[in-house]
Structure formats: structure tokens, C-alpha cells
């Protein structure tokens, strides 16, 4: 972590994050103003900095295969999805747990809020309708446990965890104030309540992963 003092009259200190900051504690307030410029992805996970190296080849293969199906749906069902964003394009800020998350993929059915109060941040009030995380070996616990809790708290109606290594997908749908899990295996077709008419073929994602592993 480097603290850079700017020369303007306010003498503002900006924080530059580096790979070695992984595991370092930090407040959400400091993290939100910190800069990064090295192509890695930084999250704040319950007050601790988490650094993810990009790219991870197989992670991208799984995400890309899922994304292609969502893109096809956007073409056949125009107007349902207003925005779709990768982790570098969006964030999810939770003051309560001192977390800032960057989901692998976020789908928004609502328009981007145009008027934000001075004391609010777009990423605290704009709630995606579906988020997707692709599990990597070091993110397994975080994706299944921590993020499920936080995405529920944030108000997200549906959350998918795609686990290529174990050839399963967990679809979590909000019901009665908690996430109801549905396990999806290759060969199962999954219908998302958030995207009417969309049928997700998890088998196709696993085929793409198998081809990339050859």
C-alpha cells in the first residue's frame, strides 16, 4: 500500500493498492477511495483486502460459456435485461460487513438510477437482479458462504455459483427472506425466475470447460 499526498490545497492523501496488500485489514471508507492500476481485481471482504489475479484461463472459459447463453437471451427477449456488467464494471457495497464485492457477472433489470443523493453511492442503491460467481479453488468458501450472505443482505433476488471443478451449479433464489438452493448438474436445464423464458443449459458450460482442458 502506498500513500500518495497530492500537492493541491486540500493536501488529499490517496491510497494505491498492490498485490502484497492481500490479507491486510482496511476500512470500507479507505478502500472505497483507494486506487489500483495493475490489472488485478481487489475486493474488500469483511474488512480484509482480497486480491484476485486476472486472468485465470479456466475461470474465463466457464464465465464466457454462461455469458454466451445470457447474450443469446438478450437477443431473443429484448428489453428484459437493461445492463449486464463484469466485476470490473460494477460493485456491491455493504457498509454493515465492511465489504466491497465485484461479482463475475451482474444482470440488472432496472434502469441505472439517475438521481443519487449526495451521501449515497450508485453501487449501494443499484441492486442487480441476478449475480453469477465462478468458483476458483481459493474462492470456494467465499463464493458459497460469505457472498451468499452478503448478496442476500444487499437485496439480490437470485445468485448462481458455477463450480466447474465439481461439475455443479448452485442456483439460489430469494424466498421468505432467505436463499432457497437448487442444485443443477450437467444435463439439467435450469429456468431462472428472474429471466422469463430463459433456459440455462449447464451441460454446455461443462462441455466448454472440458474442451479447454484437453
Amino acid at each position, binding site marked *: 500500500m502506498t500513500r500518495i499526498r497530492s500537492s493541491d490545497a486540500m493536501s488529499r492523501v490517496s491510497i494505491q493498492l498492490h498485490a502484497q496488500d492481500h490479507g491486510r485489514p482496511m476500512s470500507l471508507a479507505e478502500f472505497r477511495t483507494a486506487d489500483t492500476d495493475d490489472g488485478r481485481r481487489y475486493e474488500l471482504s469483511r474488512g480484509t483486502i482480497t486480491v484476485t489475479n486476472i486472468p485465470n484461463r479456466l475461470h474465463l472459459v466457464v464465465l464466457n460459456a454462461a455469458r454466451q447463453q445470457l447474450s443469446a437471451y438478450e437477443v431473443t427477449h429484448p428489453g428484459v435485461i437493461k445492463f449486464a456488467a463484469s466485476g470490473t464494471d460494477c460493485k456491491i457495497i455493504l457498509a454493515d460487513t465492511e465489504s466491497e464485492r465485484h461479482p463475475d457477472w451482474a444482470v440488472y433489470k432496472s434502469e441505472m438510477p439517475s438521481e443519487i443523493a449526495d451521501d449515497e453511492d450508485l453501487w449501494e*442503491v443499484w441492486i442487480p437482479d441476478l449475480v453469477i460467481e465462478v468458483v476458483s479453488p481459493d474462492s470456494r468458501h467465499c463464493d458459497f458462504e460469505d457472498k451468499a450472505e*452478503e448478496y442476500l443482505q444487499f437485496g439480490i433476488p437470485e445468485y448462481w455459483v458455477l463450480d466447474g471443478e465439481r461439475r455443479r451449479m448452485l442456483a439460489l433464489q430469494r424466498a421468505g427472506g*432467505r436463499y*432457497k438452493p437448487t442444485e443443477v448438474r450437467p444435463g439439467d436445464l435450469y*429456468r431462472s*425466475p428472474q429471466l422469463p423464458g430463459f433456459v440455462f443449459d449447464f451441460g454446455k458450460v461443462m462441455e466448454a470447460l472440458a474442451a479447454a482442458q484437453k
Partner: protein
Amino acid sequence: MSRLQTQLSLSDRGRRMSLADFENAETLEGQLFELSRGEVVVVDVPHLPHAVQVDTLREQVSGFRRANPGIIKAILSGGECKIPLHVTESERHPDLAIYCTFPDTPHDWSAWIPEVVIEVVSPTSRQRDYEEKPKDYLQFGIREYWIVDRAERVMLVHRRVGGQWKVIPVRPIELYACPVLRGCTIDIAKVFAAADELEG
């Protein structure tokens, strides 16, 4: 398998019950029951000033709905909808619930999440409206919860910000434009005035 169905009556006020049993229970016509953290609550038929405030609010939201078709799918009152929470063993019936989507599976109240719910405070509901319901509505995934409090001359808009409620007081001198309902505007002065007029 034969299953005993519970019939709830006024004497069940305060009785402990699970959400599963409560959802299966029958109630006598004309009475509204809630389950509040595992305890049966009989919702007293509110007095007329309460009813005209709910009516005025519904009229304002309905006016926006007519002028802006396609945004609001349903405006339901407490007798027409329910909010079941498995986590806290509660079933809530808000004074008004505004939905911008239809559920994927009909009849599944647990997955149909209103964007906005409104409670008009009455003397008997004050503690529930202020203390218990904010937690339940946050947990359920609701985007905004409005507490309309004529005694205090304020509408407290609870807006979901970063996974918590941020409380914004709206006074009768100002209009409230709701971002979740794409600019639906509420004139709370008119809501209070309707009840004030009744009481002379």
C-alpha cells in the same frame, strides 16, 4: 394423511405457532392475523382515519400507475397479500404492497417480493411498525418501506442502501418522488389532510 387444521380466533392472540402451521391455519372471515416472530397477532380492524390515509395513498400510487403503464404490476392491501419470513417465523400483512413484477410461480408468496411496502401507524401498531417490521422487510428483500405517521406529521422512507435501511424523513411541506417506482410522487400533506378532515 389426515392433518388437523387450526382455526384461528380472537382468543389466539399471543399464542406461539410455527410459520408452517400458521400458513395452513384458517381464519374467521373479517379478521386479519399476523405471525410476529412465532406469536399470533390479531390485527384490529383499524379506525377510519387509518383507512382514509391508506385510501389516499393508494389513490396517489394508482394515479401514477394509470399515467405510466407498465411499471407497477399490482397494488395490494393487507387482506390481499402476505409476506412470509421463514427466518423469523413471521407472516406480515402490510397496509399496502406495491409490486413491479409478477411471481414466476403463482401462489408462492415467499418469492413474490414487493418493491415498496407502506404501513400507516395506528396506536396499536406503532411498536410493530417501528421496531419489528423494518427488520422483516429488509430481510425479505423489499427496496423501500414507508412508515406514515400522522401523529408525528412525517413519512419515514426506509431506503435500502448498501444492505441496510437509510431513513429519510419526508415532511408535509415536500413531495416525495420514489426512485424505485420511477418517480411516482407522493403528497403526504394530502394523506394527513384526509384524516384530519374526518376528525374535524
